[in-house]
């Protein structure tokens, strides 16, 4: 058994393909954190006073906080004074006016990652905001979206051009004092995407941000804010990669979603930060706060995530269900291989009447990977007839990895119904042999089984992302038939 499960493990090993470094000169602030560094970041971005004040409030708060210890992950303490908090490719002092102004080296970088930014190669139906280290380097299809009143731009641009919206919603879902990493982010966040979809508008294309960490010793602290006004609809995708390095790099992002009455936001992530090598050297610490608020009747927020990268993933995309009949969904595939650790899940907070939430979590562990699902379903007294369904499945590949499930349930209204199902299975030799005896190579057989295990989550992803996600798991695309 021992040898054969090792054999299965070797079949899931894959090279990290996004591990190259782009050689661009960068404009970075010195390592370390202080009020001066925050003032410098704010000044570089020519921010209005309210923004600087907000950052400083967060910073002062952060100084009083301690890093959380409760997650099922292990790592040496982070030296926050050795991190560079702002790094931008040099060519972009005033920001590119159009793609023609973007450094060709950057365009090449995104090409290599399979993200074409040049007009002639644009993916039909997907508008992209490309964030390189601390800044957004290009946003496509902006004009087309503007014609519908949709704002899709770098966060720093939104601060300049739509200060009222930023002021109204920033921190309204994730307050600056929320938690250690979110507070750090609030102090030093550099860029990210901003989306506003006006009343009754259905965004005709997928909006996508592609995050790339390039510079070494640099943390990435992006901030994303998405607002769907009454009756609006938007589907947003997020992808991420980083070069292979021996050091650990910190990625502490904050994402806030606001769906007003009858609005719907679908947020999908394919996270492929560098996971570190087989011995656990290097890799990204992905400590992220993502939360959405359904602020009106019939609002709906869906999180779909495929987490394959990062040395450590620590995130719980959550939904606050305020509006009556509002809906929250969380679909997750988290893969841990080699020495990777993931502690991820969701929180569903039911406040409004007839609110519904669905949680589908698929954890895959192999090598010595540790995979933890941590989820909280909380039904307040006001949430008459709230419904939750949770399903957590774990798939183990080999016998040195681990899967852990921590569901927390708190129900204060007797009319609520909360259902939880959990399974743990091993990839079985019977399944692999069955597939091989039908002509599939051993690696493909593993992929097919893993892909099947993830199916209910993959089908929630937009087509392009489903393809990407399956590729990441070493899977060729199913669904060409059937």
């Amino acid at each position, binding site marked *: 058994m021992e040898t*054969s499960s090792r054999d299965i493990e070797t079949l899931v090993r894959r090279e990290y393909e996004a591990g190259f470094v782009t050689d661009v000169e960068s404009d970075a602030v010195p390592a370390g954190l202080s009020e001066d560094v925050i003032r410098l970041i704010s000044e570089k971005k020519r921010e209005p006073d309210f923004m600087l004040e907000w950052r400083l409030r967060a910073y002062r708060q952060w100084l009083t906080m301690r890093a959380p210890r409760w997650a099922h992950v292990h790592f040496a303490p982070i030296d926050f004074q050795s991190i560079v908090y702002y790094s931008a490719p040099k060519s972009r002092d005033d920001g590119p006016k159009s793609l023609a102004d973007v450094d060709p080296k950057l365009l090449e970088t995104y090409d290599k990652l399979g993200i074409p930014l040049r007009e002639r190669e644009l993916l039909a139906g997907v508008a992209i905001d490309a964030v390189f280290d601390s800044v957004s380097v290009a946003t496509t299809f902006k004009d087309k979206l503007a014609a519908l009143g949709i704002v899709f731009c770098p966060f720093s641009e939104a601060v300049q051009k739509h200060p009222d919206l930023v002021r109204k919603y920033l921190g309204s879902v994730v307050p600056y004092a929320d938690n250690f990493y979110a507070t750090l982010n609030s102090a030093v966040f550099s860029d990210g995407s901003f989306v506003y979809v006006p009343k009754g508008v259905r965004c005709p294309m997928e909006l996508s941000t592609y995050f790339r960490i390039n510079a070494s010793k640099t943390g990435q602290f992006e901030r994303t804010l998405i607002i769907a006004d009454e009756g609006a609809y938007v589907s947003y995708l997020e992808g991420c990669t980083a070069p292979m390095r021996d050091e650990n790099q910190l990625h502490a992002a904050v994402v806030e979603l606001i769906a007003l009455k009858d609005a719907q936001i679908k947020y999908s992530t394919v996270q492929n930060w560098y996971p570190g090598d087989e011995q656990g050297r290097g890799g990204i610490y992905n400590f992220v706060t993502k939360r959405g608020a359904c602020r009106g009747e019939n609002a709906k927020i869906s999180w779909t995530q495929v987490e394959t990268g990062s040395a450590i993933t620590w995130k719980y995309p959550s939904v606050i269900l305020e509006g009556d009949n509002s809906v929250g969904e969380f679909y997750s595939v988290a893969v841990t291989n080699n020495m990777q650790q993931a502690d991820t899940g969701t929180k569903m907070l039911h406040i409004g009447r007839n609110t519904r939430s669905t949680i589908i979590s698929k954890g895959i562990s192999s090598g010595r990977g540790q995979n933890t699902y941590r989820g909280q379903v909380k039904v307040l007294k006001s949430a008459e007839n709230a419904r939750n369904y949770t399903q957590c499945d774990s798939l183990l590949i080999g016998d040195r990895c681990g899967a852990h499930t921590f569901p927390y349930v708190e129900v204060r209204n007797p009319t609520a119904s909360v259902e939880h199902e959990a399974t743990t299975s091993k990839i*079985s*030799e*019977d*399944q692999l*042999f*069955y*597939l*091989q*005896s*039908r*002509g*599939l*190579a*051993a690696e*493909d057989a593993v992929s*097919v*089984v893993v*892909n*099947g*295990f*993830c*199916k*209910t989550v993959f089908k929630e992803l937009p087509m392009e992302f489903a393809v990407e996600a399956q590729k990441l798991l070493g899977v060729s695309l*199913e*669904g*060409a*038939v*059937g």
Partner: protein
Amino acid sequence: MLTITDLHASCDGKEILRGIDLQINAGEVHAIMGPNGSGKSTLANVLAGRDRYQVTRGTVKYRDVDLLQMPPEERARAGVFLAFQYPVEIPGVSNIYLLKAALNAVRKSRGERELDAMDFLALVKERMQLVEMKEELLYRSVNEGFSGGEKKRNEILQMAVLAPYLAILDETDSGLDIDALQVVAAGVNALRSPDRAFLLITHYQRLLDYVVPDVVHVLIGGRIVKSGDRALALELERTGYADLTPALTPATMLDER
């Protein structure tokens, strides 16, 4: 087509096959009968390449190649097909996806082009008529929630789509009602051809009423103790295996202790 010589195989150090000799020519249908635990499934799995069983002695020649040297997927691509006694469930993987992946793997290894979605679907629908299977099952996860009969039909459908040279059916008839049995038999009969051979493993002679074998072998204690024509199967039904079992040799008795 297939020449098995003095084949010995064990599992976890326990010898299960103790010297099998078998010659199957193209166009022939051979039946292997025997009581539970006699090694029928082991033989089928060894031929399909299951690495849980270790071949300790003997050779298997298949269409001029050494079958035992090939990994399971290459055997499948070379035209060996095993219909499993207990087909495995694969959640989330649609039946039609597996069929297509399997067929294209086989075609590719033969240097043939992959079938496009249209041609593939046409082929599958045609072959499905052979096993009278509900189309809905194509889009369900492989064998998941299938009834026993549906699983067996599904195996026959895979066989019909992959069109192997050597088809090994491991108790495909077990647990089927008479209608399902006839469907399976009709599927096998439709595929009988001069360049294809069948090895039917069965516990009962019932299947052989519908698929008439050229040769019947009796496997007991990991050895073929008797071979004959169809009459042997009928005789076994009357007399059972008891008459043949006392053939415990000193060697097997030693093992048994």
